[in-house]
């Protein structure tokens, strides 16, 4: 082949960017890890608590409240012949692998070297909370993804402050509310942060408009669902009960099964401190948010996204504990993991910060497997027992 032809060939050869290459590597690696773990769990007959009820939900109106996305997905999967509740594990494995791959690509796009990105995201796949979300078929992964989207939407709103970003925040809120029964615990503190993130707030009417525009889509969708229900004879009282259930305490059975609620139920302040400590200990990379707030002027100028990524998970966990609704701290750790990742996808780290991020993930993964604090709930104990035999 002549030189000229070689050059032409090089010029026209289809190329995959380094980001996508790294993303594919991490995505496939995660898929293998998650599949192996999921297969082992399935072979041992493990089904996470609640997954079977998620699978059975379609048709039971009173249990759908706040889980419309799952309801729709499950309804679609049930159309496929031969599917069972275990199918949901396949869905979470594939979704989690996709998220991992996409996250790697995004980090490389933001200046990370492929090695750093592969290490950072690849190590995350070994975190027990990530592994748990990816393999047990429970909707926790969906909550985490939507919470991550809230952080990304919040960052865009804080950075641009245009109407589009505010509409996007509103639409993500809708997604949050229709996929997560306990969304209100996450939504309320986010609303408190909103005016702070809006750099053009100069009057009460502006702040009010921010609330109205961000909350209106959620209100519209919920009202629409409620009205549709009443038109078809479901009493308004029952419908309101669906949506207000998170504020009325959990079922006695759940409280009895939860070690966390037995100790801390109804104690929000204590729960908040413990959950914050847990997030910092089991997910120490979130501490980098404070490092950046102290050392980076741009981060200080737009602090809301970082603070939201750090504080929203423990605050929402504390609120849920207050109302006796947090069955396990794993949800909070999962939210912290996803919110932290989403925050990392919004900032441009310096090189030493990237290495610090990787190191803190390694520490977090080790701590999470070894700290007894994470493993006192029976379901998680059973999961670890089934997966690793200890």
């Amino acid at each position, binding site marked *: 082949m002549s030189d000229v032809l070689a050059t032409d060939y090089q010029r026209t050869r289809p190329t995959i960017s380094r980001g996508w290459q790294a993303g594919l590597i991490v995505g496939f690696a995660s898929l293998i890890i998650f599949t192996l773990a999921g297969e082992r769990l399935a072979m041992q007959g493990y089904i996470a608590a609640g997954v079977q009820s998620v699978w059975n939900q379609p048709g039971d109106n009173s249990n759908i409240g706040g889980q419309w996305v799952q309801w729709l997905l499950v309804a679609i999967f049930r159309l496929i012949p031969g599917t069972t509740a275990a199918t949901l594990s396949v869905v979470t494995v594939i979704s989690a692998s996709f998220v991992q791959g996409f996250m790697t690509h995004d980090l490389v796009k933001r200046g990370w070297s492929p090695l750093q990105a592969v290490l950072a995201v690849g190590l995350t796949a070994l975190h027990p909370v990530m592994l748990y979300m990816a393999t047990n078929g429970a909707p926790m992964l969906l909550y985490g993804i939507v919470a991550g989207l809230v952080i990304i939407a919040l960052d865009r709103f804080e950075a641009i402050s245009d109407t*589009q970003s505010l509409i996007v925040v509103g639409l993500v809120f809708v997604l949050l509310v229709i996929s997560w029964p306990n969304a209100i615990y996450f939504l309320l503190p986010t609303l408190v942060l909103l005016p702070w993130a809006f750099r053009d707030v100069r009057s009460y009417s502006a702040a*009010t408009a921010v609330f109205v525009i961000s909350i209106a889509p959620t209100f519209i969708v919920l009202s629409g669902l409620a009205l549709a229900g009443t038109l078809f004879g479901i009493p308004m009282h029952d419908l309101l009960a669906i949506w207000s259930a998170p504020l009325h305490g959990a079922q006695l059975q759940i409280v009895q099964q939860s070690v966390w609620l037995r100790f801390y139920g109804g104690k929000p302040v204590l729960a908040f401190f413990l959950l914050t400590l847990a997030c910092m200990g089991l997910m120490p990379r979130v501490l980098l948010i404070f490092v950046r707030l102290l050392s980076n002027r741009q981060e200080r100028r737009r602090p809301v996204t970082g603070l939201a990524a750090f504080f929203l998970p423990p605050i929402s966990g504390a609120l849920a504990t207050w109302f006796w609704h947090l069955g396990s701290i794993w949800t909070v750790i999962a939210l912290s993991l996803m919110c932290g990742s989403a925050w990392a996808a919004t900032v441009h780290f310096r090189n030493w910060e990237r290495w610090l991020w990787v190191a803190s993930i390694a520490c977090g993964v080790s701590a999470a497997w070894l700290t007894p604090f994470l493993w006192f709930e029976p379901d998680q104990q059973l999961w670890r027992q089934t997966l690793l035999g200890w």
Partner: protein
Amino acid sequence: MVAVLAVTGWRPPTKRTLQTAAALCRIGKITEAQLYEAVELCRQWQVPLPDVLSSIYQISSQAWGRQMAQTCELPFADLQARPPDKSLLDETSRDDYLRHLFFPWRREADGVITVVARDPDDPDIQTIMRKRYPGCSFEYAISGKFEIIRVIQSLFDTALSEQAREALFLRDPELSAKTTFSAGQRWSFIGLIVLFLLGLTLRPHFTLVLLTGLTSALYTLLFLFRGLLTIIGSGRKVDLSVGQAEIAALDDAKLPVFTVLVPMYHEAEVLPILVSSIRKMDYPRAKLDVKLVLEANDHETIDAAKALNAEDLFEIIRVPDSQPKTKPKACNYALRFARGDYTVVFDAEDIPETDQLKKVVALFRASPDNVACVQARLNYFNRDDNFLTRMFTLEYSHWFDYLLPGLHLLNIPIPLGGTSNHFRTDVLMSLGAWDPYNVTEDADLGVRLTQAGYRVAVVNSTTFEEANGVLKSWINQRSRWIKGYMQTWLVHMRHPVRLYRRLGFVGFMGFQMFIGFPPFTALINPVLWAMFLLSLLLGPRSFAALFPPAVLAMSLFDLLIGNAMYVYFNIVAASKRRWYSLVPWGLLAPAYWVLHSVAAYKALGQLITNPHYWEKTQHGTSSQTMDKVAALNLSEVAAGEAS
């Protein structure tokens, strides 16, 4: 194709022109400093010196003509006392007369032809005359610019009026709304009605379900489309088309002449607003070719315009009385006298942002050649007057700030707004300009531009208008708009396949969504509201049993989510302009939709009985408008006393 009158090739002022200006200085009409400044501006802007003197120092065209005649020792032509010899003028040279401001006035006994001109030193006049009258000798008489234009206009008004009315129809009858329904459309409508009646008779349930299903699908589609446009248009990126740096980079010498058409009819009361707005424009005033387009029989407005003594600013174009008496016909007539490379239409009460023309020029220059029109955003200055003006403001904000930028980004035909659309004059003329038989000629022109391969851009500059806050007038205005949209849809759907080929899938669907469906939904809404009330009376469950689940789900989605999201779009509309006090008013949008439906039924009736009737919008009804006029009048009095 009609030639554009834009003057090309600027020449520095001749010796006699400078002598005339100096003479004006000597007799005290201008100071010496003003003289130097005018000459400097003349060179800087590259426009004729008398235009600078007229626009900056109010030296009337007649005063200049008389002084020029005196300086050149030539006769001053009193054109009122001695009108021109019509046999000397020929229609084919009309554009030359207007471009060079001259015409052959009379033939003397010795065969010499006297030519009336503003500038006897213009070499092109001699060339044209020698070509037209070979072997003849010429003499010059002088007259003012506007006197010459007025004579040319009156001499050719019959032919020009005919062209203004029929040019498009004669050129392409298929694109004119002169005929409302084509034969094919008439038969199609009759066929559909027969099919509907047959369906109701033979299979009523199936027909009901089919129609409900189709309507629900249509509403869902419309809602999703508008939602998409709203999200696209709400981004900050779409607002940054022209920045201050681009405006600052414009060289005054290279700015083109800009024609501003202001059609008016019985609107004398808002004239001071127009004069004030034009005076405040950040654009070399001598490069503004402002034409006040008035109906010849509207003596009240003509007298008011004359009384303003703003000849330095605009010329009056009298549109001969003929049917249809519409704004597009008046604009078509005035367009024949346009001298600008670009042409814009403003309403009389419009207050454009001062840098709008410069932004438009910058945007045209930065855009590809196929951008033939730039639409500025419209909004209202009297938004706080009452419920109607608030809702109107929210509606316009959504339309111009969100939907139009969204349409532009998706390359969908943009239905132009009634004013503040800036055209490349040559393209406008080549397309046959506005359709005088279409009562939303602007929307129609937007579609024709896209069909011809041109694009419409949206500029980040706003023109503030007076919102119609009087219910009867609002319904009249809205019924005209809806009727016009119906006309536009009918015109362009005469050949749907051809339209599809020209616009492509996205453009074709956009056309249906934006031009076709809104009148249809305004008509159908009361039927759906009635069905909803009926379902509540009969019991929703028994009513729901009539429909298959998919149709029911879609209908419920439209009713509960779709309608609410439309309300949401209204709420969002105010936020881009930071008019947060209007946000709660967005919740009242459903009441506003009822008014739309009232107007839609009026429009439908008129489409059948009186399709070309122009429902006049009453301006000057807002207290804010009258306050503005009063303030302008007061400041004028104060300025007069000070001088």
